[in-house]
């Protein structure tokens, strides 16, 4: 009560002085926008018709500009209609549904968008994993490996145990994934806390160990009876239930991811342990002198981070794929680093960034098939977005935003400390 009174009396800090809006919203949005614009330039440069038209720029400048515009429109049009769906189809679907009660067209119209959310699900978990690490001052590059191990563990629980009711089997499979990821994260955490071995190198090493281990598991102990190196399908009782009939893979993984995001937010910002983690992240020495155990917190951060990344793998297997094959991750773990940066390590920011990435990733496939633009353009855009987020000075320079310069953010403090 008294606390509240004191807080209320505080003079309100002028919003302008807070870096909040510019730092947290404007710069990320402009970074994504700039990334997309440069992506558009790449699309034009790789379009034969547009290049040919630019060759005749002085004869007919209109053609060149039109050809470029066409290239971009086709590319990004395919990207966004492939990831968000077409409004016209949705409208038609609604009309059909209200007229006949048949939801087939409606579901078909929303299929692209639900696919984007399906892609976003592992991104949310993995992004939260990296963001949690950042909050604690640790750089978990190992999300990819933890993702693999989590996926394999939950698949193992999913197909090996038979005959359990779903309300035991499903939580068990999720828990298996989280636990395996947690172990994979805890090892570098322990090595960092006890021996000062830098987590960046160790998590990279753990990634490669995870890749080799999964290669071995998929070609041997966990291989299904067929020729391909994949695990058997998981039991139906371990699946994250899907909301709709079959082509739509939208499942409970997404709401679960949102719930976990809220949980992580609550944990980080409303609990003592979360405060300790952020304190260790902000200034380990100060945390130490105020009586917090840095060693314990580092291990805790990496364990939780690993568990989240493991859950990402579990959600992917239990909700979307139902089996694990070689190279099935498609770089979720590495992209999650970009996500966490884009979301400013805030759980809600991560969710938004993850949905954006889900949209880009799932739309890229249809961009490749419809417009002939290789899917890898998404990685180019992602790389650029990370650079722009990490170097806000570039974005400020381009768009002439004036704010007090924020200090350099140092995440990594040398390998050995």
């Amino acid at each position, binding site marked *: 009560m008294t606390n509240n009174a004191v807080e209320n009396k505080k003079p309100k800090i002028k919003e302008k002085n807070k870096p909040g809006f510019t730092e947290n919203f404007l710069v990320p949005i402009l970074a994504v926008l700039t990334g997309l614009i440069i992506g558009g330039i*790449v699309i034009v440069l*790789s379009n034969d018709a547009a290049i040919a038209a630019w060759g005749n720029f002085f004869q007919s400048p209109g053609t060149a500009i039109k050809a470029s515009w066409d290239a971009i429109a086709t590319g990004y049009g395919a990207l966004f209609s492939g990831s968000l769906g077409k409004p016209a189809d949705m409208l038609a679907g609604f009309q059909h549904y209200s007229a006949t009660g048949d939801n087939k067209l409606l579901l078909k119209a929303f299929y692209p968008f639900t696919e984007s959310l399906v892609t976003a699900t592992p991104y949310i978990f993995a992004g939260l994993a990296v963001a949690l690490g950042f909050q604690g001052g640790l*750089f978990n*590059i190992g999300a990819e490996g933890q993702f693999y191990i989590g996926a394999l563990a939950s698949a193992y629980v999913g197909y090996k145990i038979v005959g359990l009711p779903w309300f035991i089997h499903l939580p068990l499979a999720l828990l298996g994934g989280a636990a395996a990821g947690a172990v994979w994260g805890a*090892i*570098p955490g322990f*090595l960092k806390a*006890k*021996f*000062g*071995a*830098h987590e*960046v*190198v*160790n998590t*990279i*090493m*753990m990634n*490669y*160990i995870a890749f*080799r*281990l999964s*290669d*071995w598991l998929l070609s*041997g102990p966990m291989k299904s009876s067929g020729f391909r190196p994949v695990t058997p399908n998981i039991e139906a009782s371990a699946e994250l239930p899907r909301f709709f009939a079959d082509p739509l893979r939208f499942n409970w993984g997404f709401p679960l991811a949102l719930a976990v995001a809220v949980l992580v937010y609550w944990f980080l910002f409303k609990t003592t342990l979360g405060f300790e983690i952020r304190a260790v992240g902000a200034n380990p020495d100060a945390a130490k002198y105020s009586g917090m155990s840095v060693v314990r917190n580092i291990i805790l951060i990496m364990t939780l981070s690993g568990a989240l990344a493991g859950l990402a793998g579990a959600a992917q297997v239990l909700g979307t794929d139902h089996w694990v094959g070689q190279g099935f991750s498609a770089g979720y773990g*590495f*992209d999650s*680093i*970009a996500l966490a*940066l884009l979301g400013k390590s805030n759980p809600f920011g991560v969710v938004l960034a993850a949905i954006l990435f889900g949209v880009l990733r799932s739309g890229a496939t249809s961009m490749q098939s419809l417009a002939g*633009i*290789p899917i*890898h*353009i*998404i*990685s*180019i*855009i*992602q*790389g*650029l977005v*990370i*650079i722009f987020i*990490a*170097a806000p*000075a*570039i974005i400020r320079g381009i768009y002439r935003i004036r704010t007090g310069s924020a200090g*350099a*953010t*140092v*995440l*990594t*403090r*040398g*390998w*050995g*400390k």
Partner: protein
Amino acid sequence: MAITTQTKTQNKTAFNQRQIITGIVLLVIGLLMFLLFARDTQPGQQATFGLNTDNNAGTIIIPDLVLPVQPSLYVLIVVIVFLAGWQIARGIRSTGLLVGAVAFAFVAAFLIWATKDQAFNLVGMMSNSLISATPIALAALCGVISERSGVINIAIEGIMLISAQVGVITATIFHNLWIGLIFAILAGGLVAAVHIVLVIRFKVDQTVSGIAINIFGTGATSFIASRYLERNIDGLNNSGTFPNITIPLLSKIPIIGPIFFQNNIVVYLMIILVVVIHILLFYTPWGLRTRAVGEHPKAADTLGINVYFTRYVNVIIGGMIAGLGGAYFTIGSVGRFDQNMTAGKGFIGLAAMIFGKYNPIGAFLSSLIFGFADSLQVKMQILGINIPSEFLQMTPYIVTMIVLAGLIGRAIPPAADGQPYEK
């Protein structure tokens, strides 16, 4: 005074404890060697190790090495047990020597066991090891030269991918491998320049910048590969490779000749660079400046060394070395670009750098170990050993983690590694 003696005794007990733990680990290794290898052999078995390569360039032929399996294994186990006893009783000063000896004994035991009743071309595998070690060593050298000046560079993977692609495309277009090599090196320097500009000028976190460059590099090279290279292989992605150069006289030396003196230009350049950078780093003013900037930039600045300039130069030179490493993948070995063909060699190079304690020669030797593990798993399949090759491939990573933890031989990075310098 009392405090110092106390810490001294503490240090001493800590040392003793570590000594005993290491000794016990050695005993366990000895036991493992017995259980895994020696128990699985019969008396009278022999292992034949070939010491000549098939493509003899006038090398003097020497007889193969034939070892009796069981006695050799027991000798190696006794050596390990002796070392363990010595370590527990007296302590062995040089951890490097200890680790080297144990690793050698273990690997030798493994090879002898694996080759029982068979023949195995040792020199051929050593030669393959050096070749697989080449890109790793170049990546490690790039790491050494950057991190010695205080800049973390985990963009090596991306740099190598981009250089590999630039190298093969330019070499194919100009029908000249040397032009490809030069362009690959320049591309490496350019990408590294982007990294260092982001780090110094825009104060981007060094790891974040590295990751961004890796993601960008993977995306851009794959984009170009699937948009252009796959449609026009002969016009853009078919360069041929550098021929092997046989060095007269030296190549005729048995064992050493086929391993070191019958390689292509990239391998020779790598060996030369290792030596040159070692000398530059430890015996020239430039090296002293580099190390000063990496250890204590403020002090270096006070003495008139331009910290930023030194870091720019070092990282860009490092990028050019990594560019050479990238060129190895295409014009140095297969003559075409495949998506993600570096397959994590840049990161393994970082591991080799740490394993080699930020020292060019150390980095080279650890690259050889990584290359050895790489080529060993190929040979394992030929020998029909039923150890999954994946576990063999894992060992370098596990060893790196152990080294990084300081359990055997601590690798201490430059003090200012990863820290931005502000005047």
